[in-house]
Each structure stands twice: as C-alpha cells, then as structure tokens.
C-alpha cells in the first residue's frame, strides 16, 4: 500500500491519523489533493486554490463560545521585538512555522496538552526580516532566509538538517519573504525587497536539489515586451520593484500558477518612472514548468499610492450569466474586489468593497480605472494624487497599506462568500522627488494620517461584487481571516484580540485578548479527533506603526508565541 492510499484509507475510516514515527512524504499528489486531508494544512494557503478554508467543523457556531487556550509555545528568544508573518503548516500532528530570524521550527502537537519543539533550523540570519512560512515537499521543509545573499533552504523533515541551500548572488539585495510553493517537482519562489530599489523576479527550483531551473524578472528588460512602460531618463526599470511577497495559487487543470506583484518603486513618486510600469501591481499567470507568462492583468497602472497587489488570487467556481465558470477573485489593496476568468484574466466584474476615492470606478470590461488615460505618462485618475506641490494635499482612500493587503481574505465554498479583512483608513500621500536612492530611501514620498487605524471585516459575493455585510473593528487587522466548515470566520487584531464570527450574520461568537498584536494569519488543524485553532503573535515593525494614533495601546508590549485553542 502506498503512503497516500494509507492516508486516504485512514480518512475514509473517519479516524484522525496517528502520526507515524517517520512522517510520510508530501508527494505532489498529496498537495494537489490537500483538501482531502481535512486535518492537515499542507501549504501556505492550505490548498492550491488559496481559499484558506478548512472543512473542519468540530469547532462550530454552537460550541465556539467554549473555546479556550489549550497550550502555548513561545518562539524566538534572540532579541526584543521579534515577530512573524507566517502561517503555520500542520502535517499529521506536527506543526512547522518560521520567525523573523528565519528560524524554522518543527513542533510536536500530537498530545493536545502542550507543543514540544522537536527541532529548530537556524539559518543564522544577520537581522530580523519578514518570513511568511514554509513549504512541505517530499521529506523536506523549505523556507527563505537572509539577505546579501538571500537563500532558499530545504531542511530534512525528521531531523531539521539542511539538505540543500540555494543563493542568488547576482541579485544581492533581494529577500524571500513569501512561503515557497511546491508544484510537481519544482519549488516556485518569488523575490522581494522591492521597496529598497530592487528589480524582483520569480523562479522555479528543482525540489530535490534546489538548482535554479528558470527565472523571470517581473520588470521587463530592454527589448522585452512591457519595457516601454518605463519611461524617463532614470533607468527606473532597474530599481523598479515588482516584488513577489505573498505565495501564489495554482490550478492543476490548466497548469498555471497565479501570483500578484508589488508596487512600482519609488512607491509614491510616479515622476521618477513615467508610464504604466509593467508588470507591477499585476496578476501574472505563469507556467510553473518553464516560467513562461500565460497572461497578466495590471490593476493600478502608474501607481502613486503603493497599491501593490501581492495579495492572494483565490481560485473559485461561480455561476456567471447562468454558466458555471472557473474564476479568480482578488480583494485588491486599491479597494476593489476583482473577479476574472481563470483561463485568461478577462474581467467578470470589479466593485469597491470599501470607501474608494482615487478613481471614479473600474471599467467592467477592461478592468482598468475609468479615469485611466493610456496616453498619459503620469496618471491623474480622480485627482487626489497631490501631483502639484503648490496645492494643499488631499486625502486618498484606501490608505497606502490598503484595503486588503498581504493579510489574506478567505473564501467559504459553503456560503460562497469572501471574507475580506481590510484597513478602513484614508491617508495623505505627499511626493518627495528626492527620495529615490539608497541614502534617502526609495519611497519617493510619505503617507500620513492623524486618524486611528482601524479595520473592517467585510463579506462580499465574489461573483457579483455585492457587499453582503461589514462590521467595523476598533483595531487594524494585519492578520487575515480563516473560514471553516463550522460556519466560523476567525481573525486577529493588533490589540491582541482573536475573535470568531458567524460566517453569515457576522455576529461575534467568541473572543480572547492575549495582549500581543498579530501580523500572521490564523489556521486550523485536527489531531486525535480534536480540532484546534492556531495563530502566532508578534507583530511586524510596519504593523506596530499602525498603532501610532491609538493612545490606549501606547505601552503595549508584544511577544512571539504560538497560541493553540481548543474546546
């Protein structure tokens, strides 16, 4: 009997799997069928479709009020202000996660009474960086670490020993902050750190050896299509960003992997880089075998508000005009919910899910802003761009941080609704035309607000774009949402609150405050017939800054701790 059929048999018998002494290989087949292992969370978004939905339902609307801390596991321990942005993975009672030192942890969660760290793989990173977690492939656990040069490291799942390590010394300033995505016999990675004036890229590595098989820059070089969208005399394409920093999705049926790309750099100053700046702020469909681009769609051409679109491109099925369709939905940082055809990115609809003022709206056929002018080198859109230094600055909504952002939306196939965690603020963005070098930084300006940063949990129908319901929350959500078969939506806030909502009424059914803020998503798993909700506290430096206008949390302290809740 193969390992996979043994796993399926155990599931068919309705029993939770007993963890074997040596963990089974995570085969490409198991990854394609990750939804058929409801107790597990085998990849960053749980399944290739990126829905972040778990069918587990032991914790549900009727009993969630009894949810309590089952155990906690502190991580880190090397310095103050440690943080994480990682989604833990769970395979058959063992949890894998990473921290801001790039340290990869294997934690035994089989007992339900405590979490014991089995091993730590410490890449000896020079300083703390964002790390969104790991990928499982075969007997390997794979994550990114470090800078100058950044590395992708594969550790043996049983021992934590490094099996291979690949660095890219020809692009010394990139970082790897997204969890890698394992597809067939390859590990797909994206390079980040775009905001430091880096030209970023996607790559496919041989999963067994880490050898680079293909690499494609997200910003086209001279002679490549799209290069003409980087005008001016600054060679801005060489420092133009287009970072990849959230894991993409994958459609096995069409063999395409869809990733969102980051903003053009300098983020606030379009004068440095006139033009549309392809392929920044885009959805790109790649062939995972070759890296060839199948299609792309750019959301905000010639952006000046940091509306990067790395957030998940979720694969869903929906009925459009009476026909069953394969779709992609994306709650964009720019305030709109876009749904498009999976085969080619053709627009189905784009509707705002929050207050938006940077454009009058989106053309429902092309997906482009109604006030986008392809003839212009610098877009004016709805006129809130503060392009003229002599005019008083105007407010722009959403803020430069969104809307939604890297903290994931989730989709429940039960309700067919999308649960969008979104900042609800506006900001004032001013351009600083000197900020485009290593010394002054590559921001090209500044974003500011005197308001509190707060958030909404918004439920939308991703086929029609209709906002069904929205609740306003007093603190920013830099964590995301998790939808479950129990009819619940979990989220976490920067004040230390973790809460569960009814997936239809959005009634708050449960909450706890653990003090430390969150910038990492919640997830769920089952072991020995019990369901758990897991989330790691410890907010990133950027997310902590969102508490600048929140006086009651002035003296808040944070801690890097895995919290596991159960009934």
């Amino acid at each position, binding site marked *: 009997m193969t390992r996979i059929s043994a796993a399926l048999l155990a599931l068919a018998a309705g029993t939770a799997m007993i963890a074997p002494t040596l963990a089974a290989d995570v085969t490409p087949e198991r990854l394609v069928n990750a939804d058929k292992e409801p107790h597990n969370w085998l990849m960053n978004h749980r399944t290739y479709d990126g829905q972040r939905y778990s069918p587990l339902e032991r914790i549900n609307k009727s009993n969630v009020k009894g949810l309590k801390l*089952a155990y906690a596991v*502190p991580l880190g321990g090397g310095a103050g202000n440690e943080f994480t942005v990682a989604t833990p993975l769970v395979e058959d009672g063992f949890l894998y996660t990473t921290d801001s030192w790039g340290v990869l942890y294997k934690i035994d969660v089989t007992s339900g009474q405590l979490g014991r*760290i089995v091993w730590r793989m410490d890449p000896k990173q020079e300083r703390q960086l964002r790390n969104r977690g790991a990928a499982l492939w075969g007997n390997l656990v794979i994550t990114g670490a470090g800078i100058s040069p950044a590395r992708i490291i594969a550790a043996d799942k049983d021992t934590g020993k490094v099996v291979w390590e690949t660095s890219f010394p020809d692009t010394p300033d990139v970082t790897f902050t997204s969890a890698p995505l394992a597809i067939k016999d390859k590990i797909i990675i994206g390079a980040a750190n775009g905001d430091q004036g880096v030209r970023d890229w996607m790559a496919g590595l041989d999963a067994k050896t880490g050898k680079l098989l293909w690499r494609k820059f997200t910003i086209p070089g001279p002679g490549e299509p799209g290069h003409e969208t980087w005008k001016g005399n600054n060679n801005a394409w060489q420092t133009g960003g287009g970072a990849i920093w959230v894991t993409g999705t994958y459609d096995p049926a069409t063999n395409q992997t869809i990733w969102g790309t980051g903003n053009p750099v300098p983020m606030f100053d379009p004068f440095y880089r006139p033009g549309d700046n392809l392929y920044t702020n885009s959805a790109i469909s790649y062939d995972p075998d070759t890296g060839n681009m199948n299609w792309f769609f750019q959301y905000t051409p010639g952006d000046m508000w940091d509306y990067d679109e790395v957030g998940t491109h979720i694969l869903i099925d929906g009925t459009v005009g009476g026909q069953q369709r394969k779709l992609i939905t994306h709650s964009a940082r720019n305030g709109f919910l876009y749904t498009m055809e999976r085969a080619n990115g053709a627009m189905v609809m784009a509707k705002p899910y929050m207050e938006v003022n940077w454009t009058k709206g989106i053309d429902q056929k092309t997906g482009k802003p109604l006030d986008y002018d392809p003839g212009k080198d610098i877009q004016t859109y709805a006129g809130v761009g503060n392009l003229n230094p002599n005019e008083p600055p105007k407010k722009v909504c959403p803020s430069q941080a969104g809307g939604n952002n890297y903290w994931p939306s989730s989709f429940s196939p039960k309700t067919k609704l999308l649960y969008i965690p979104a900042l609800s603020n506006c900001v004032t963005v001013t351009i600083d035309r000197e900020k485009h070098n290593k010394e002054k930084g590559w921001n090209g300006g500044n974003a500011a607000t005197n308001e509190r940063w707060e958030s909404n949990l918004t439920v939308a129908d991703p086929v029609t774009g209709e906002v069904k319901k929205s609740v306003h929350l007093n603190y920013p959500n830099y964590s995301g949402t998790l939808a479950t078969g129990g009819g619940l939506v979990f989220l976490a806030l920067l004040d230390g609150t973790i809460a569960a909502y009814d997936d239809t009424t959005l009634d708050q059914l449960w909450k706890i405050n653990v003090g430390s803020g969150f910038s990492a998503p919640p997830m769920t798993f089952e072991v020995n017939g019990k369901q758990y909700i897991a989330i790691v506290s410890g907010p990133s430096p950027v997310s902590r800054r969102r508490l600048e206008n929140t006086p009651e949390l002035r003296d808040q302290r944070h801690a890097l701790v895995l919290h596991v809740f159960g009934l």
Partner: protein
Amino acid sequence: MSNCEDITIDTNKHSKAAGWQGGTFKITERYTSDLTAVDPTSGEVKKSIRLNYPNYSGALSTGGGLVFLALMDGTIAAYDDTSLEELWKINVGSGFTAPPMTFEAGGKQYVAIASGPSNSGKSRLVNTPELKEQRHATILFVFGL
C-alpha cells in the same frame, strides 16, 4: 527541588576574578521537584508528590481549597490542598521563576502568574533533553472561570 548534587570545594574561588563560589557542583540527574504538604507545628510530612520538572515558582494556597504552582516546562497546575490530587493544568511553553497569586475584580476571581524564567532557573533544565529546544517569553497570564 528533589535532587542531590556533588559539591567540590575550590579554595581559589574567592575573588572578583575567579568568582566567589568557593567551589562547584555537579549533577547528571534531571532536576525534578516535590510538592510537599507539612504540618508546621509538628513537622510531620502529610503528603508529597513528585513533579517531573523543577518548581522555581512557589506555591499559592487559596480559600477554594486549592494549591497552585508552576514548573520550568511551562506547566501551571492546581492541586487539592488535602489529597494533593491534580485538578487542573495547562502548559504555556515558557518556564516560570515567579510565584502565582490571585485576586478578584468585578466579582470574579483570577489566578495570575508571569512567565519568563531566570538564567539560573533555565540552567536547571540541563539534564532535561525533551526541553532542549524550549523557548521562553515574559508574559503575564491571567486565568479565570
């Protein structure tokens, strides 16, 4: 603590440079601990239970008939103050070197304890291989019904 140690005298260790220990101690066993209930007027040991990890935290006894304690492995536990039966426990991962306490606010009773073990507390895990990779955090935990 329930252990014994081998102590050797080092007559040179009595200066700032060499330290003021005057010797060293050696242990190859696990450090473990006992919760022991004694009649302080007679000195009679009424009951004692062995715990798998060192207690550097202390004991809190309450009118609810409970004794609370915390251990270096991250366990906080409550015992029946007569039978010493364990009635409740939770593991929060980080070790403890601070005592538990209790208070009431708004008509509700809480048990409070801060985690985050001291250096010498941590050094007592020297022969406890299953906690080799344990990490710690300074956190105030507050428990209630």
